[in-house]
């Protein structure tokens, strides 16, 4: 797997019905890797009443058959899956049957990851409303523990992610907003697993809405940082926009200190994929402009890579 590859989420440009064309398209935009939003496929096929999904009710073998065209396209275009975005939310308070279904579907997704050659899956921790942190931690540890055997079986690293909660137009801290808490989760779970099967996905946009220090968060995570969700916002809404487009309240200064991202990644020796999660930045523009916008995103990625690798 290429070091500091440039990746992008599949949401808003990937055609589930035509993997060949989709992967050729994203390769033409320059990308080396994709963050496969399997969560979107789950949402589109899940029937809450029946607790069934036309896709995820399939056997692992049938799922591999389903993903054969994608695997072929990836091989042909020399694109790899750097990470898969798991189902979210992963947990619904008081809905045990639903939770069980999600766990089973996620285990099957691990098998899909292995089949596609993907080493990491991002699974959001649960952020409970009006609950104490200790209860939230208890629920999350239980949730992730259940997935340890399947993660070991398929050789997948489960990545937690820094989240936020919103109320009307304001965003608040949620599970893993704090870097020390994230380290605690990763270290505790790895200790229980007896090996390093848990890591972290740093969501740069979420850092912005919760007001954390991006550089300090990265350097605190250190080697626990496995994958990234790179995107921009105005610190008010989690907009998932293209980097270098959003200002602070002065209207003239960048809201996110992108130099801090570069400096932090460089200092911890990060060599994973520089994966963008800019689905709104893509969705809100006319379809004809999207390839050019994705090429700009790719160029931003190559700039980041150059700075991290060469110390520009």
């Amino acid at each position, binding site marked *: 797997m290429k070091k500091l590859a440039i990746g992008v989420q599949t949401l808003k440009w990937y055609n589930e019905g035509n993997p060949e064309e989709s992967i050729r398209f994203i390769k033409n935009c320059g990308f080396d890797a994709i963050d496969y939003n399997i969560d979107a496929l789950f949402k589109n096929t899940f029937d809450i009443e029946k607790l069934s999904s036309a896709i995820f009710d399939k056997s692992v073998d049938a799922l591999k058959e389903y993903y054969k065209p994608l695997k072929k396209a990836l091989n042909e275009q020399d694109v790899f899956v750097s990470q898969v975005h798991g189902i979210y939310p992963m947990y619904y308070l008081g809905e045990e049957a639903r939770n069980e279904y999600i766990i089973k579907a996620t285990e099957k997704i691990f098998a899909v990851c292995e089949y596609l050659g993907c080493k990491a899956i991002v699974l959001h921790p649960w952020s409970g409303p009006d609950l104490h942190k200790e209860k939230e931690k208890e629920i999350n540890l239980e949730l992730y523990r259940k997935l340890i055997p399947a993660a070991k079986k398929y050789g997948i690293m489960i990545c937690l992610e820094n989240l936020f909660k919103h109320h009307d*137009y304001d965003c608040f801290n949620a599970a893993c907003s704090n870097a020390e808490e994230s380290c605690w989760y990763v270290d505790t779970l790895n200790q229980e697993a007896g090996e390093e099967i848990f890591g972290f996905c740093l969501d740069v946009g979420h850092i912005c809405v919760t007001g954390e220090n991006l550089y300090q968060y990265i350097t605190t995570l250190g080697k626990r940082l496995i994958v990234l969700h790179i995107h921009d916002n*105005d610190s*008010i*809404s989690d*907009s998932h*926009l*293209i980097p*270098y*487009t959003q*200002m602070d309240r*002065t*209207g*003239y*200064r*960048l809201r996110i200190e*992108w130099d801090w991202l570069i400096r932090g990644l460089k200092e911890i020796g990060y060599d994973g994929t520089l994966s963008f999660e800019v689905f709104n*930045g893509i969705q*809100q*523009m*006319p379809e*004809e*402009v999207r390839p*050019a*916008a994705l*090429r*700009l995103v790719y*160029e*931003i990625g190559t*700039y980041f890579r*150059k*700075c991290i690798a060469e110390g*520009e």
Partner: protein
Amino acid sequence: MKKLAVGVSTARWIDEKDHVASIKFIKKCGFEALDYQINSWFRQTFDPGKMTSFFDKSVEDLYEHYTPMRDAAKEEGIGFSQFHAPFPMYYPDDAARTEYYLEVTQKMMAIAAFFNCPSIVVHPWGEWDGTQGITKEEEFEVNMRMYRRLMPAAKKYGVQICLENMFGVRRTEQGETLVRGACSDVNEVCKYIDTLNAEAGEELFGFCLDIGHARITGENIYEYIKTLGNRLTDLHIHENNGLMDAHMFPYSQEKVIGGGLSVDWEGFIKGLKEIGFEGALSFETQHAIEIVPAGLKQATLTYIASIGTYFRKRIEEKE
């Protein structure tokens, strides 16, 4: 110059010490026309104490200075759609400075003609901060006097003067508020242009619609363009979130409350299509260039050019 040429303001990327390399660079980014921000060079060289600048040179010397730039543009197939004059053009308490700016602007018109550039954007003056107690009628008279002064040079050099829709910043004890400024109201714009052209006896005045300013003052872009009709000659295409004049590229900013695209680009395209606009699709996205690292300037400009190409395609396509 090509109809609906894709253009960009020279602010934040042009190297005034190496015009030839700059022209080659912007061609590589995909642009076909330039809005030469000659006012930036003026500002860099202007000494308000001595009332001197680079533009104290004779017109002949200025032609000589700009010859390599003109030749490079010709060689690369880059046109000049518009110049941007110094602003503010009028200083109520400084007659000498106002006079100097008017003199310089006339030389800039000569340079525009030298570049075969058809227009120069000259901002109308407005009651900028609300502290001077100027009425709309007085503002109109000041602007009429200012534009009248420029008529002879405009005729001489064959350069159209374009007014522009402005916004104001009203400063009170409660703080700053962005408000409508001179030419925010499209009917006021039409009155200016029609009155000035009637006085000039020819179509010497046109209009530069600044999309970002229109967003700030809450105008309906489609209606504004339709009302302007063929008075619309130039554009300043850029985007903001409605609160600050951020000069970013289209499709990048969201409404602060509720999200969603900040600017009605569909109304913009529809309006230009309906009035048969054929001028340059000129971007004034200098802040988008200024805030990216040097290593991303070319990629950003290339992306902006592709948005322009998209606009042109949509405007040209048959229903």
